[in-house]
């Protein structure tokens, strides 16, 4: 998979899974039920989930059990590539958070990737 040891400037190719999360409405708040970490303004060496320690992408660090994210199939350690069409590989932490927590959207469609996806695709070929 070209996600590991990515050469800057070259396009990233990855096998992704589409995950659609319907935000849960609790009073006036919309809840997604997961936490993110990472971003281009963060130190990538501290990321416990990435294989390539220079990867500055957005990773899922926690999934609250029973929340909308877990129901949709999000797993801890996933790397988020797109959110509703917006790219997540070259964004700051704040920008990623804003794209996920838009109040006007009830549903977020994510493209996520993980190492097990590639293995699964390779096994099925």
């Amino acid at each position, binding site marked *: 998979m070209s996600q590991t040891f990515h050469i800057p400037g070259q396009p990233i190719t990855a096998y992704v899974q589409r995950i659609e999360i319907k935000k849960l409405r609790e009073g006036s708040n919309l809840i997604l039920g997961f936490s993110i970490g990472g971003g281009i303004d963060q130190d990538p060496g*501290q990321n416990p989930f990435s294989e390539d320690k220079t990867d500055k992408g957005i990773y899922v660090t926690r999934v609250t059990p029973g929340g909308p994210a877990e129901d949709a199939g999000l797993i801890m350690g996933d790397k988020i590539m797109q959110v509703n069409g917006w790219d997540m590989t070259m964004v700051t932490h704040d920008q990623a958070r804003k794209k996920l927590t838009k109040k006007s959207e009830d549903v977020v469609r994510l493209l996520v990737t993980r190492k097990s996806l590639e293995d699964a695709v390779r096994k099925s070929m």
Partner: protein
Amino acid sequence: MDTESTYSEYSHYSRGSRGSHRHSERSRERHSKTRSKDSSSRSEKAVTINAPPAEPLLGDQSTIQGEETQDDNWGETTTAVTGTSEHSLSQEDIVRITKDLEDSVGLGCRRYLALSVGIVLGLLVFITPLAFLVLPHLLWPERVKPCGTACEGLFISVAFKLLILLLATWALFLRPSRASMPRIFVFRALLALLVLLLVVSYWLFYGVRILDSQDENYQGIVQYAVSLVDALLFIHYLAIVLLELRQLQPCFSICVLRSTDGEIRHYNLGHLSIQRAAIAILEHYYKDFPVHNPALLTAAKSRAAKHLAGLKVYNVDGPGNNATAGQSRAMIAAAARRRDTSHNELYYEEADHERRVRKRKARLVVAVEEAFTHVRRMQEEELKKPPGEVMDPREAAQAIFPSMARALQKYLRTTRQQHLHSMESIQKHLAFCITNNMSPKAFLESYLTAGPTLQYGRERWMAGQWTLVSEASVTSNLRDGTVFTLKCIDFSLVITAKSIPYIKLSEEFIDPKSHKFVLRLQSETSVPRIL
């Protein structure tokens, strides 16, 4: 990893504990989220935090729950650039503001006085020949003898010479002044006096010989006006020679030495007064000398303080008058005998600092190169991209700036340049480099080495704060051995003038045919004569 994490670790621990506490709080009281908590979490984000050592695997994370989030950082967050020397900067600001207030009143008056004198003189000069020509026709029109083609030729020559004089005056005198000197500019004052004298004497003669006697010879009057214009043109020639040409030929070598860090530059100047030489030197200073950075001098000052604080001297013989002289000598002797290991500290500290700077520089170069690969110019056939993706240089700079911001800020802190660059200036420079297709190395050059003072913002220039300190009068000429000082707020430039050596060149003629060569043998073995 980073050697400067001792203080910041503590701050991170306190913040970490607060964060996890708030975490559990939030899970229990979800309905009590308010905007203020959000803003407080965001203000916490502004604290500098370095890598925590053994953090639990998840660390602090950003929880997506509606609009309430906690800050995630893999232990490190970008911060706004705050200079550690802001305290001293604010004192400079106060000094500068008071000085500006004081100077602007006095200088404004002087400048306006000089300007008004110049305008009056200029008007006088241009109107006088025309007045000479027109007055006879106004005062005794019936008695003026008409003169033919000779007069017309003279009229044309007067017109063109006045036009040339107008253009030449505009070129030489009507330029925005680039400096204001403490005393009057002697040559200009002399020239103004000369012009005034000339015009007044011409008017005198005109009044006595022509107006009083009502001369009818109009051709003579016209020739009189033409001679005035010629004299004015010659005075303008004199002005060019005195003001512009005389100082061009260099005859002094000036050594400029900055008192705080010892930067030396040498320049060649011609015959100038001390104040004009000072202005010429300051113009060179702003483009040649690296910017004055007081943060680099603190190490030397602390070492000096340590030398002084080393010894205490007590007087055991009771109070006496000659105690002080004996005390200082005793201190010097004791300091000489003491085993001073500060040179050791200096050596290792400098080696350590050098290594740290190089490490940070390597990280910075890699981060910037990676950031630059993400931006490229849009090709023509991509015009149909959605407008959200097409960016102007400022937006492109803002998009890639966060990925290199941390590395750049750490490097600037290590080299103590962080107060010279603000976030906006860095982003503006990045947008400029992107617009002009520069490489990452070109973008970094202005941060790796300290540039001349003009490269930084206007508040570093302090162009209004220079004071000329001189033992000789500032309008006297430069001479061999002249020494004067230009003082700014916290440093000064010491200037020494030496005359350029008189070069005596002699000649030696070589005939081209005289170049003849033989081979030199390396080893000679004498062959015995065979009989």
